[in-house]
């Protein structure tokens, strides 16, 4: 009986629901979601979950850019986001804890194209996941946080870890903590010979020599890793290796760029950078000198030389350009370089309009611009033809370096001949009013601005002078949340192949998020506490257990962490362009390790400059004549860099063209690279040279091949490898002893004079060397 009553009851209830549904059809869109609600984070973090969505999909129209802002809604500032919508009164974009009433939510869930956010024509879409995150966030109270990168870094407690044996220093606690959370185990310690190779490549950009191997690995029973690290940090090659990266940041080149792209003499500045790194100059001082060396109280010639950093940008020599247009371009270039290279911010986005994602107005941009606006320079100093005839290789302002300087503080400059060298530097001797330029156009000045730095990062103190020196102080002020973080992160990327913040060039809202935020902060603070000591920082990284792991990828790790985000294994990635060439020079024994001096012209496929130049008399870089003798075998950071046609052996391996500041190179894998490694004259010559030497010293083939294998890969071949190579060698030994002519042809590659007693043998061994130089392992740091 009761049951039947209930039955009736249920019937009625069902019908009622039916009716409600009927009525509700109009505004059901809100309640109708919750598909894909799975794998939502239990606890929503604004910075890590919400901000990325808002920034990427909303800020373009509801962000910092006042001119482009739609419906008066601003989502990057808490008060604005939570206040009543100016254009439809009574409505709120965000009402904490009430997603149902929040316009934002109904707009992102609606199907109605006229209502939908982001609007269809923006071609942006929110995934269900993203929608649900936003909803959850609002339901949990819609809390805002300051952008993580602008919060001053602080050292946090070392996280707890179960495995107490593994950690070697602080870094490892942060890494291991995460590894344990996801249930991995750290990889085992890498074998000695791998470690020394890794270390040598990271700290000097060169592979270890056979002697070093002998000294540290083979003979030495008690393998002292610390000592090894000290040893490599002390090598002069260290300075060169660090400089190689800094040249990308400083967009260094040996030519002016643009139309005629003629010669410039900036190489003494490069010598200084090498010097500074080898002296282990503190990073804050390193920056200060380069940005404002000339403004330091009674500045030395060295300090002024350092400011060449801001004159490395392209300069036009095209007759008939508009002076101011280009001068303004140069100033912008300095501003952008400061942003990308030192602050890790995309300042340039704020040149034509307020920044769309980060809290910088156009005014902020030009306030920084103002710092660099007072150089006594011209947009067009002299056209290429004049410059050529007057042998004018540095546009004013410049300093002249004469022989006597070399006896003094500039002793580090490797000046070949007695000719004076001019080097472009900064000065502030032409004060100009700085204006906000409408749409960034040089001919559309609007409001006057005074030199200053964005409040959003950290206040520009009143006691800072309002010039580049003040800017440098602001940058290196310990309250500045970016400078240290950005540099630490970049060194990390250099060592581990990928930054803690993947986008080393962008710490802003649109940049990637730190995978180990606490670690990044800890290192940054630690770095500053130790007086910005770069060698100390590097040592910290390479002595960590994290670094010393083997780079072998276990199958399950390959599935779960292919990009090695958790660092449960050692880094493994392709060497950079310069490293690859230097690797071949070193292992073959061709390398000329002279430090500094003017750039050199190694082998390059003929005709490249000739085909594209602007006519024979436009500047002095119209034809490429390779150098001769040991100049051919200098390290690659000395390779002559013509901006409009950089050395192909570099660009093919992802070197930037140096038109702009670059802080991160791609690591691509292309057929052109395969061709270069197989057929580049330098590689072949290296193979030949190595083959020659070995044939001289070892009669037995097995021994010869082993030696070669050792010198190229710094390890002994496995039996199988040895067997395969022997067999290969055999075939060619036979072939060439019959086919003498081709053997001759083969080994006659390169300028280095041939001295072999046994052509066939050398040729055969050279084939083996080519195989080894083309192995993935050879051009990979592992």
């Amino acid at each position: 009986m009761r049951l039947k009553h209930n039955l009736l009851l249920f019937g009625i209830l069902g019908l009622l629901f039916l009716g409600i549904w009927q009525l509700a059809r109009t505004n059901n869109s809100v309640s109708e979601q919750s598909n894909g609600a799975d794998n939502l984070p239990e606890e929503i973090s604004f910075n890590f979950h919400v901000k990325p969505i808002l920034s990427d999909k909303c800020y373009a129209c509801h962000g910092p850019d006042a001119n482009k802002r739609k419906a008066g809604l601003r989502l990057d500032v808490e008060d604005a986001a939570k206040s009543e919508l100016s254009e439809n009164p009574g409505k709120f974009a965000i009402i904490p804890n009430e997603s149902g009433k929040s316009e934002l939510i109904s707009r992102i869930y609606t199907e109605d194209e006229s209502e939908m956010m982001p609007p269809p024509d923006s071609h942006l879409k929110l995934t269900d996941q993203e929608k649900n995150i936003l909803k959850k966030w609002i339901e949990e109270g819609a809390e805002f946080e300051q952008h993580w990168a602008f919060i001053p870094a602080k050292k946090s407690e070392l996280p707890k870890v179960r495995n107490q044996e593994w950690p070697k220093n602080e870094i490892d606690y942060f890494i291991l903590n995460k590894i344990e959370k996801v249930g991995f185990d750290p990889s085992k310690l890498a074998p000695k010979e791998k470690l020394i190779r890794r270390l040598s490549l990271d700290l000097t950009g060169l592979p270890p020599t056979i002697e070093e191997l002998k000294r540290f690995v083979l003979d030495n029973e008690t393998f002292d890793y610390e000592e090894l690290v000290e040893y490599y940090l002390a090598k002069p090659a260290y300075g060169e290796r660090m400089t190689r990266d800094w040249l990308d940041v400083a967009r260094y080149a040996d030519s002016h760029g643009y139309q005629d792209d003629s010669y410039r003499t900036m190489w003494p500045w490069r010598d200084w950078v090498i010097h500074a790194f080898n002296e282990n100059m503190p990073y804050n001082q390193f920056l200060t000198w380069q940005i404002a060396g000339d403004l330091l109280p009674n500045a030395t010639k060295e300090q002024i030389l350092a400011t060449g950093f801001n004159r490395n940008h392209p300069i036009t020599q095209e007759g008939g350009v508009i002076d101011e247009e280009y001068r303004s371009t140069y100033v912008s270039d300095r501003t952008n370089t400061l942003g990308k290279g030192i602050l890790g911010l995309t300042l340039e986005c704020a040149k034509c309009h307020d920044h769309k994602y980060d809290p910088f107005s156009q005014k902020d941009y030009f306030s920084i611009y103002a710092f660099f606006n007072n150089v006594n320079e011209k947009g067009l100093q002299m056209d290429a033809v004049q410059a050529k005839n007057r042998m004018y290789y540095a546009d004013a302002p410049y300093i002249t370096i004469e022989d006597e300087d070399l006896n003094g503080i500039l002793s580090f400059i490797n000046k070949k001949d007695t000719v004076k060298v001019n080097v472009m530097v900064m000065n502030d001797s032409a004060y100009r009013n700085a204006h906000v330029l409408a749409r960034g156009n040089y001919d559309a000045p609007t409001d006057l601005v005074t030199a200053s730095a964005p409040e959003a990062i950290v206040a520009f103190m009143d006691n800072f002078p309002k010039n580049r020196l003040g800017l440098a102080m602001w940058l290196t002020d310990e309250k500045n949340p970016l400078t240290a973080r950005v540099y630490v992160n970049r060194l990390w990327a250099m060592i581990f192949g990928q930054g803690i913040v993947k986008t080393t060039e962008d710490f802003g809202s649109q940049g990637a998020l730190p995978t180990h935020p606490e670690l990044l902060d800890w290192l940054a603070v630690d770095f500053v506490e130790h007086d910005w000591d770069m060698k100390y920082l590097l040592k910290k990284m390479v002595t960590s257990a994290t670094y010393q792991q083997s780079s072998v990828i276990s199958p399950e790790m390959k599935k779960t962490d292919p990009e090695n985000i958790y660092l449960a294994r050692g880094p493994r990635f392709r060497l950079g362009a310069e490293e690859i060439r230097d690797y071949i020079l070193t292992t073959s024994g061709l390398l000329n390790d002279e430090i500094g001096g003017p750039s050199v012209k190694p082998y390059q496929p003929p005709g490249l400059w000739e085909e594209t130049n602007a006519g024979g008399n436009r500047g002095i870089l119209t034809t490429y004549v390779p150098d001769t003798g040991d100049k051919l075998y200098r390290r690659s950071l000395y390779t002559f860099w013509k901006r409009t046609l950089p050395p192909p052996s570099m660009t093919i391996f992802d070197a930037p063209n140096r038109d702009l500041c670059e802080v991160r190179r791609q690591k691509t894998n292309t057929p052109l690279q395969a061709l270069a490694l197989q057929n580049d004259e330098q590689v072949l010559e290296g193979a030949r040279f190595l083959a020659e030497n070995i044939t001289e010293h070892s009669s037995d083939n097995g021994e010869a091949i082993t030696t070669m294998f050792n010198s190229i890969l710094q390890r002994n071949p496995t039996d199988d490898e040895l067997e395969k190579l022997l067999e290969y060698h055999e075939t060619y030994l036979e072939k060439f002893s019959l086919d003498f002519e081709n053997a001759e042809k083969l080994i006659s590659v390169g300028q280095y004079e041939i001295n072999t007693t046994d052509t066939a043998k050398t040729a055969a061994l050279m084939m083996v060397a080519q195989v080894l130089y083309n192995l993935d392992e050879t051009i990979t740091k592992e």
Partner: protein
Amino acid sequence: MTEKSLKVFFNYTIYSLAILLVFLLVFEQYLKIPSLINWLGRWHPLILHFPIVLIFVTIVQYWRMDKNITWYLAITTLFTLVSAVTGFILSLDGNSKGNIIITHQWLGIGVSFLMVVWYFKFSKLKDKSIKSLLGLLVVFIVLTGHYGGMVTHGQDFLSFGKSSNEKMLTLPDNPNIYTHFVQPIFDKKCVSCHNENKAKGELILSSYNSLLKGGESGPLMNDLENTLLHRIELPREDDDHMPPSDEEQLTESEVAILKNWFELGASESLAFTELDPESGIFKIVQNKINESKAQSWSDLPEVTDKDLHALNSDYCTIRRLYHGANALQVLIFPQKNYSIKVLQNLKPVSNNIIELNLFDLPLTGKEMKLLNSFEHLESLNIRGCTITEEDFNELEYLKNLKVLKAYDTQLGDEVVNRLASFTSLRDLYVFNTNITSSGVDNLRSKNKNLNIMIEATEANDFKAVLPPPTLEPARYFFRDPFYVKFEHPLNQIDFRYTTDSKDPDNNSAIVSDSLLIDKNCTLKFFASKVGWESSIIDSMTFLRSNQIPPRFKLEYPPNEKYIGKGGQLLFDHEKGPMNFGDSSWMAYLENDFILSCEFDEIFTLNGVILSSMVHTDPYLFPPSQIMVYGGMDAGNLRILGTLRPSEIKEREEQHFEYYHCAFQPCEVKFIKVIVQPLHKIPIWHQGKGERGWFFIDEVVFKSVEGV
């Protein structure tokens, strides 16, 4: 309230409602419904669901011999009547009822009365007749429901897939705006309420004419502020907004289409091409056309990206014609170890292949047979493939083949009949084959609208001029006799030349293979070949220079703009290029060119030749005069010869110039050459009165033995 009185209450309400219903039916046309009542009608769509379910529940309970069956009956009957009444009221709200509504109405009423009968006559009826009554009831309910559905959701809302068929119809290249875009919008979003049966607001949107008739607000076109558009554009909250806020809304693009169409005069004939490309509607329509293109192949079988991935290989590229299409383009490139397998692998997608390109492949009849199964093939390219005519004829009727590219093949008239059989073939590319013009005519006669590209006719009136030959080595200054070869990119070329400074013609000497150069001379030459126009006449001067001064100096340095690579360029046996900025040229403007040379041993000099350049536009002129001094000791040199180049009368093209200052042979150990650049440029030149540039790249001392 006791059970009994409750029962009584039910009896009365049901009774009165039934009466009310009858009353309404009888006096329908006399009724004036007050808006409040009217509002009651709006509840019909809600309430009607109750009786439907309830009735079934009741029936079930009846089977289960439920004691409380009467209660179920009571409630159900009540709801049935209520919904019938409200439904009736609602039907008065709209105007002129369509047949569907009428049917729906009577069925509904039917249902109600059946219920009433069942309710009151329950106890008295026999089990058998109840059964039949129930059966009847069920049928009525279903029908009522169905017609009700038609009223709200449109005529054929139950008929399968028809709507999707509509989508499939593909747009022509130049679609009509009304039929292809406007009406479909109405059909989709409006007609359900604005049709013959249910013309809300007297507006019927199912045809162009009815549309023009408009609704309450009168004919659309006279209705200036276009109520239809107006109400569409009202904010959704607004009560007048159309479609009603609870209905499916128009999309932005739909609104745009309607707006534009009305603005353009709502013509029934307006076509795509007549639209203003800047207008918003244009872009929309354009996209729609593109989309519909996709559907022209939409009946093709589905291909997954995975399949495509698997089928692609180094020499075989398979890609969708565009995003989401199952129509494929296939390219197969020449490869060493080609075998028919490459084509056989395509079997799984053979019906998707619209475009097939086979380049320079050795095709046989087998391949052709295979192709016969590619039934959707529209474009076939066998450029450069080696295939015999018989083999080609293995290709049978490809009903969709529109384009065939067979140029650079051995195909001949044998295949004409086969080609003629491809009735849908439109474009045929067969240049550089063995197909004769008669074959072409034959083909044209069989397939009237076939374009045959046998060769680009315009190409014929290109006249082909030979480039002049190049001399190897191009050695202007030489010490020892040598041979020059004449080189030319084409073979079988005649090179004719002269050395007597007359222009060569077709009777001039022909270069056998190469030519001995042993003394100063100027070669003039050209290239000729049958079927080509002879090249222009080119010339080259050879100067023997075997007296190189071990020591020499220049009084003044050259002008800073053209310093060249320094003095040594004067005796390096290298000719400067036309680009006088090159470092093998030096130039003088203000200063004289004064060159003093000292030789180790005495020799007999009988002339000096200065290699220079003239180019009047950039002020490169012959010098005013050239003086040569010589003698045995530096102290007293006597003048040997003077040369005053003749003044230039008019603008001259850029060209090399050699100033030959000849004089009586004379023994010398020291020589001094003085050249004065032009002092006054002649008046005809824009730089009149200014100085002229003197350019020099080589100095040649003619010694008697040398000549």
